[in-house]
């Protein structure tokens, strides 16, 4: 099963480079996304056996994040197929008087599928070496995706993404070597199980150094401030399908990688040292996100900064430990579903209004009624308004902070969330309301069903999660949280 999860998308990705027919390639994308989702569901119900001497294990943490990746990829495939068909019709886009050609569709689909394979490998691997290889592979295959619109700004974003993430992940490689050194002269295994087993014997100063390097390295990819600088550029310039996957799936993969290092640290008894780092970077990310969401002029960048905010919340939740870890795991699910849905809608708005400037987009509710309603619903969901799941998970983290007597942290957290609500409202609301700009070419926009359906499903899921968490999911969340909770 685990081989299938990895090799099906990989082989399909390689095939799509050579398949010359668009229709066949798009059908294949759908089939792979569907079968990946089905296999993931099977793995959730029956845990697959470990493969290759314990190198690949789908533990609860892995299953949880694999589930997120798989659901998002399925939604992205539905959205992507109609998006590619639409882009095909006007291949020569015109944006700010600048002509550009899109990259060939075969390359796009191929990279998208290999991207899925690499992300699957990240959540499955228990060996830090393989984990590193898979993380670096996600960077390399997603770079062509960001450069899909052959535009000079997407080129700039791609360059920053490539360089900053490659350098960041190189630091994580050094962290891997440090992990090997911690085990004394005889052993240098990089298997997570071995590290946990030998936990109490590990060399503490080197383990601390290893965690810092892993955290900074994978944290760069996760978009934690102040290593986040690539993120807004890449998310705003990539096609919306890709932005959704970057934000909802890729950032989570990086988060899992950090958590793997944290697992080893917990076993060695330096969990509290790591928690301080998690909290510090979590708060920093929240502050950076707040500052840049205020006065943001580009709505896709605003969504990108919102991702930084939510990564900060995840980091804060793990750092608080105890009940907050469950909240953080739940928040990862909610954030991914909501943010992917919002990026899809942002894509609809962008392709109709042809601008990413907030001030030029008015009256989405009139021009694109269905997208407009979902845009508003997404706004309420992502800022944590009550009936949605995001509210519940944020509340869990807040309550855990209060229970632990960390009132200062709770106050900062709440204040930042309020500020972000106001900042986001000043962008979302004027875009949705009002009359359409007069110079808009076709005021009554067409909305094909497949361009709004994925968001509808995703937001409905978030709404359901806010009202009721199914027993199976709740068990999975607790099992995952237990793996990364420091029991004193």
């Amino acid at each position, binding site marked *: 099963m685990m081989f299938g999860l990895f090799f099906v998308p990989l082989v399909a990705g390689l095939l799509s480079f050579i398949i010359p027919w668009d229709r066949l390639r798009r059908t294949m994308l759908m089939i792979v996304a569907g079968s990946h989702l089905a296999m993931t569901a099977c793995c959730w119900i029956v845990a697959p056996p470990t493969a290759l001497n314990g190198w690949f294990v789908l533990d609860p943490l892995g299953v949880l994040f694999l589930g997120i990746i798989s659901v998002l990829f399925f939604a992205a495939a539905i959205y992507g197929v109609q998006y590619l068909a639409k882009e095909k019709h006007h291949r020569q886009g015109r944006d700010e008087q600048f002509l550009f050609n899109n990259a060939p569709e075969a390359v796009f689909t191929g990279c998208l599928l290999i991207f899925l394979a690499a992300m699957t490998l990240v959540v499955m691997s228990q060996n830090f070496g393989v984990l590193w*290889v898979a993380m670096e592979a996600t960077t390399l295959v997603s770079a062509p995706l960001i450069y899909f619109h052959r535009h000079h700004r997407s080129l700039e974003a791609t360059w920053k993404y490539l360089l900053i993430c490659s350098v960041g992940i190189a630091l994580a490689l050094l962290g891997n070597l440090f992990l090997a050194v911690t085990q004394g002269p005889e052993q*240098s295994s990089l298997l997570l199980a071995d590290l946990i087993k030998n936990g109490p014997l590990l060399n503490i*100063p080197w383990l601390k150094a290893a965690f810092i390097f892993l955290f900074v390295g994978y944290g760069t990819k996760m978009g934690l401030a102040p290593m986040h600088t690539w993120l807004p550029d890449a998310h705003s310039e990539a096609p919306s399908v890709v932005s959704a996957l970057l934000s909802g799936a890729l950032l989570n993969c990086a988060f899992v990688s950090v958590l793997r290092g944290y697992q080893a640290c917990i076993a060695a008894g330096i969990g509290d040292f790591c928690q301080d780092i998690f909290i510090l970077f979590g708060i920093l990310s929240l502050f950076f996100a707040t500052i840049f969401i205020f006065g943001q002029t580009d709505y896709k960048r605003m969504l990108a900064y919102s991702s930084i905010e939510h990564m900060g919340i995840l980091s804060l939740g793990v750092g608080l430990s105890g009940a907050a870890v469950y909240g953080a795991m739940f928040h990862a699910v909610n954030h991914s579903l909501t943010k992917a849905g919002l990026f899809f809608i942002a894509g609809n708005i962008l392709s109709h209004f042809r601008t990413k400037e907030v001030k030029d987009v008015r009256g989405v509710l009139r021009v694109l009624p269905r997208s407009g309603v979902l845009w508003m619903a997404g706004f309420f969901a992502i800022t944590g308004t009550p009936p949605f799941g995001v509210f519940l998970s944020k509340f869990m983290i807040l309550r855990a902070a209060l229970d632990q007597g960390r009132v200062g942290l709770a106050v900062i957290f709440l204040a930042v969330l309020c500020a972000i609500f106001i900042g986001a409202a000043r962008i979302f609301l004027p875009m949705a309301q009002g009359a359409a700009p007069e110079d808009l070419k076709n005021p009554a926009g067409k909305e094909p069903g497949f361009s709004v359906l994925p968001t509808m499903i995703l937001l409905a899921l978030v709404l359901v999660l806010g009202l009721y968490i199914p027993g199976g999911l709740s068990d999975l969340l607790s099992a995952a949280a237990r793996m990364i909770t420091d029991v004193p």
Partner: protein
Amino acid sequence: MSSGIDSVLMGIILMNLWLVATSRISACIKIVAFQGILVAFLPFVAHASSVTVETSLFVLATVALKGFIFPWLLFRALREANVRREVEPFIGYPVSMVFCVFIFLISMWLGARLPMPRPVFSALVVPVSFATILIGFFIIISRTKALTQVLGYLVIENGIYVFGMALLVEQPVLVELAILLDVFVAVFVMGIAIFHISREFDHIDTHHLSQLRDWTAPKEEVRP
């Protein structure tokens, strides 16, 4: 034995200093390639008694990649980009040199702070590794061209290899090769990106890559 490895490590450090003082990009590419070859041979010098077939194969692969394939890719990018062949640093050469010596001193201090839990054959391994990584960072931030940033990335990679190779951290060969493959693809993709940058902007100076930012001044503020 110890003096052999020490001289190789000192060679790597001297390469760093030479690199920051060099003004021609083609010379820089050669220096980084030479440094890569030196790094690749570290296991032979450090563990001369216990060289296995696997280690030798891996060393050969590293030499081929760092010493020949990377420079070839970069020279090709340089030729296609057709840029001025000067480095044009933000920070002048003498200041860079002083800075690098300073970085080396800091690394010595750091190395002394973190004693190795296993026997090490040379006290210089950790400082040299740290210094090379930090100098790689310095090159990335202080040089303007996209190509020199790739060189900085390679220097960081070399620094990490000093650590891994000199300690001979036993990873399965498959993982090692996969890591090499990743680095290769990274440089390859960066080479393609450089080509696109030069075609799009007619140069590869990264300070022109500054359109994406927050709070840009609105283009047409005044509306009648």
